């Protein structure tokens, strides 16, 4: 199969004239391809963005842990010092710091509301631990903490992080699955449009047969046309999809999780692959539909 046939791209003017233009199937193919490519841009953005999120969470968050110390008023400072000593002698820890009460109050404000009488609440003390490249063994640290400071609990984030990473990974696969489904649906619709065009041009096909046209020639006349249209539609659809994504609020304007849905850096180039892929899908779908139909017409 000569997929890279130059005449496929440039078009054989004579060959394209032997089949009369078919308005309806042409518009249908153009629209289908544009709509599917528009959706494909979002599916692509979704899977790239969730892939990025999963990576960030599993990398950056893995390096930060928290130690929570709950102890009666009198023992809190002593236990804090004990924990600090343990941390200072634990390998794999880059730095740690006690989160001041004021900062802690700030962290809690969005949840509990402002003007909270924090002094009346028995708040635990929090120590943020940043591990270095090697990392520390959480189980060993837990044992030592239990011996030195019974009120200290190590929360290494894996417990709540894992489901988030899994969800992000799941979303990424959903995005890729959507891309495959979009491609499949497009192949299906273009096959139907091509079959309609072939059926509508049955008389033409018979005349072409009578003057000695081979199946590949007849199929080629249809295939080129559908490939062009699908490529053009995909160009429009992918272009509109890119514009729509560019118009989404950016990371900076609203600091929410959803704004991560977009392209970053070289990611902006990936939608450029949509039109060639759409054209290839149309080429294969039309060609197989045409050759199958011509085989039956013998």
């Amino acid at each position: 199969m000569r997929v890279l046939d130059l005449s496929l791209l440039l078009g054989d003017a004579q060959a394209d004239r032997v089949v009369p233009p078919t308005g309806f199937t042409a518009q249908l193919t153009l629209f289908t391809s544009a709509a599917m490519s528009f959706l494909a841009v979002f599916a692509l953005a979704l899977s790239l963005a969730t892939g990025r999120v999963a990576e960030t969470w599993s990398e950056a968050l893995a390096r930060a842990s928290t130690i929570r110390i709950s102890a009666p008023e009198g023992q809190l400072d002593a236990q804090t010092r004990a924990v600090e000593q343990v941390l200072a002698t634990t390998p794999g820890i880059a730095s740690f710091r006690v989160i001041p009460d004021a900062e802690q109050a700030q962290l809690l404000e969005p949840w509990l509301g402002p003007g909270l009488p924090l002094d009346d609440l028995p708040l635990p003390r929090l120590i943020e631990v940043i591990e270095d490249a090697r990392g520390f063994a959480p189980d060993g640290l837990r044992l030592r903490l239990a011996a030195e400071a019974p009120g200290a609990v190590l929360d290494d984030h894996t417990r709540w992080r894992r489901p988030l990473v899994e969800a992000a990974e799941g979303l990424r696969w959903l995005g890729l699955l959507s891309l495959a489904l979009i491609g499949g649906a497009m192949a299906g619709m273009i096959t139907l449009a091509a079959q309609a065009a072939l059926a509508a041009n049955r008389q033409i096909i018979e005349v072409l047969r009578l003057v000695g046209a081979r199946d590949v020639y007849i199929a080629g006349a249809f295939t080129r046309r559908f490939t062009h249209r699908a490529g053009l539609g995909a160009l429009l659809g992918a272009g509109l999809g890119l514009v729509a994504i560019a118009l989404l609020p950016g990371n900076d304007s609203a600091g929410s999780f959803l704004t991560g849905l977009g392209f970053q850096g070289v990611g902006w180039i990936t939608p450029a692959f949509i039109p060639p892929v759409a054209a290839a899908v149309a080429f294969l779908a039309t060609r197989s539909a045409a050759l199958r139909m011509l085989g039956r017409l013998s």
Partner: protein
Amino acid sequence: MIELDNVGYSYGRGGALLSDITLRLAPGSFHFLTGPSGAGKTTLLKLCYLELHPTVGRVHLYGVDGTRMTRDDVARTRQSIGVVHQDCRFLDHLSVAENIALPLTVSSRPVPGQDLHDLLHWVGLRNQAGQLPPELSGGERQRAALARAVMTDPQIIIADEPTGNIDWEMSLKLLGLLVELNRMGKTVMIATHDLALIRAAKSQVATRVLRIQAGRLTLAGADL
């Protein structure tokens, strides 16, 4: 050039339309095929240019067994036999000239402008070259079909009722073109039930007249 050996044919499950037909078309020969309407003239011609495959027997074309040909082989063969169909079908969205050049176009061969011009001149359609086929008269359609049939310079010309619905004068003109082709060495076979046309041809070239009757092929007597 074309050989049929004990060929039989039936459409679908119906009885045999043609049976036990043996025929040899020698190079440069001129044949007429006649018989009542519905006798199977068109069917026999279709067997000759491989549009139909015989239910019994074998058809050899240029020495090759038709049943062994692939679809592409058959397509190629169509270019070495010029056929004027009974209903002369054209692509109605292309001009007469483009239709005549179609056999070259579909095999991705260049169309020599001079040849096309000469051909249009030969069949007397120079002024109709740019028209669309539905705008042609019956006689003009027949001549356009003949021009298309000879575009690839085939060795065999098959014409199915070429004078079907045209007047006598035009019929003679068309016959003249076919006789001219035969004098150039082409093998010609014409299906017709116009006996006057056969007599007119006999005065110009040596012809053999075949008759189909009740599914059998016979050589017509000298009375024609």
